[in-house]
């Protein structure tokens, strides 16, 4: 039996700003992980990653990151992804500054 696929989001760094972005279901890059597309199928995840890799003028280093469904949208699973979605812990900079 194959292992259950852990849902994913596609994430990357924005080429110009260098900040964290996530891919939405309608092919946009968002700065709010809650707006990201939660991909629950492995084959579809590969397709979405290929789509992201095809946008080198917009993003750098796209990859698939484990995520789970939360009340407002996808949430990060690993603490590294949680920090990327929030910002550093020593100053209110990064994504937490935008969201307030």
């Amino acid at each position, binding site marked *: 039996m194959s292992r259950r696929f852990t849902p994913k989001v596609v994430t990357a*760094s924005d*080429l*110009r*700003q*260098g*900040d*964290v972005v996530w891919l939405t279901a309608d092919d946009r890059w968002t700065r709010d992980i809650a707006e990201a597309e939660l991909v629950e199928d492995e084959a579809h995840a590969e397709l979405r990653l290929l789509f992201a890799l095809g946008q*080198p*003028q917009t993003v*750098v*280093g796209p990859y698939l990151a484990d995520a789970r469904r939360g009340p407002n949208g996808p949430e990060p699973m*690993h*603490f*590294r992804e949680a*920090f*990327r979605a929030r*910002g*550093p*812990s*020593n*100053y209110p*900079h*990064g*994504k937490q500054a935008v969201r307030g």
Partner: protein
Amino acid sequence: MYRYSDFDEAFVRARVAQFRDQVARRLSGALTEDEFKPLRLMNGLYLQLHAYMLRVAIPYGTLSARQMRQLALIAERWDKGYGHFTTRQNVQFNWPRLQDVPDILDALADVGMHAIQTSGNCIRNVTADHFAGAAADEIADPRPVAELIRQWSTDHPEFSFLPRKFKIAVTGSPNDRAVTRAHDIGLRMLRDGSGAAGFEVSVGGGLGRTPMLGQVIRPFLPEADLLPYLEAVLQTYNAAGRRDNKYKARIKITVFEHGLAAFRDEVETRFAEIRPEFRGADRALLAEIRAAFAPPAFARLPVGGFEAARARDGAFRAWCATNLAPHREGDHAIVTISLKAHGATPGDATAAQMRVMADLAERYAYDELRVSHEQNIVLPHVPKAHLPAVFDALAAAGLGTANIGLISDIIACPGMDYCALATARSIPVAQAIAQRFAALDLEHAIGPMKIKISGCINACGHHHVGHIGILGLEKAGVESYQITLGGDATELAAIGERAGPGFAHDEIVPAIERLVRAYLALRAGPDETFLAAFRRLGPAPFRAALYPEEARRDAA
């Protein structure tokens, strides 16, 4: 202070122009990321966890007031109003936008600065004793030598694609404040029996995944032989270093795998070959550079006011006790400005603080500042008469913390708050330890203590050579912190020993507190430092304090 020549200026400007064009081509799509990445790294531009990061070189940690002010301006105009001073005596900006970086590099070039060779497999920024030219215990100022090496290594065509990065440190004092034995090459300035100047050369030091202390490859290298000898070492490494495995590519592994004797023989053979090609231009250049590093004309000011202020003012007295070091001139002192206010991010300074430090340097300290590898700022030459005014101005800017060399004077790398390579955070651990011991009011009772924290095995936070080292790792999906004990970064360099299993993020501060309380209970007296007590007692009692349950089980 050394000033860029027209040649340096033209070289740096040309590089900025090239990079401006490269950024434009990346943004237009003419360059792929794979093509662009090595180009941006050659100019100190990394892509980190939340943003780009620009690492600016501060050769041997020396800055003028004008340069410090320019860093403040860059922080304000293109970043988030602060800069982070690093264990490599550099400064990092954590939030630049790609299209702004060429402008930042131009602003740096305006004050003779750049970001060249702060990344990549080349000879990196040369580091030196942060008390260079000022320390009472110094044989000679190491910075002219560091500058000579910088000029020789900049864009050196043969050494631009080494197997791995290469770090050289120089000290001119027998008390090693430059951690020379943790560098690929460490140079300790000496004089031989006849008084001639030279170096003890050590090779193959480095922290990281496989920590090793450098071994002495030449006990006395005459000064005239320096560049050909360095070139021989680099050539040997360039040819023999491993390119098949990134983790085995540093010179420490080359020396280890070949053995010091065989490596030395190869170096000596090459040295004999190339020595005749060095016909004295390097020596002439060194003499010129030395002239540029002539000490300032020291003012002779009465010290009575300083003594009186020290007797009168407890806060000033406490600061003098920790933050001053002996200057070679009796009526001067070396001031270390702490960038470690309790709860602050180690090494960070706001633009306003940078300007305060620049103003003080200009007004009271012959226009010189240094960045220490311990992530503090140094005013190397301050007449004692000016110390009360300097302290008052620092205190007003939140820079008057009296904690140099104490438990809250922690080295911490950026860790997972910024660094893309990190496995755990470092900064919040440093903040919490400093705040905890401030709340306990124990810091002065504990005395000299070096805690050093890295957020991954790369060891930028020098944890192996901390009296207490903390290494952040990931274990089973959470941050886990491993403690090492008994490391030493001085001339008595030692790699700390791992104490045992790691601690979770919320357990690490209590663990450090147990460890320190055990030391206070065990020490022979207030004069026995943590490191001395550890050397006398060995790790067992400290392990017992860290792992009380295990100790109880063993006793049962």
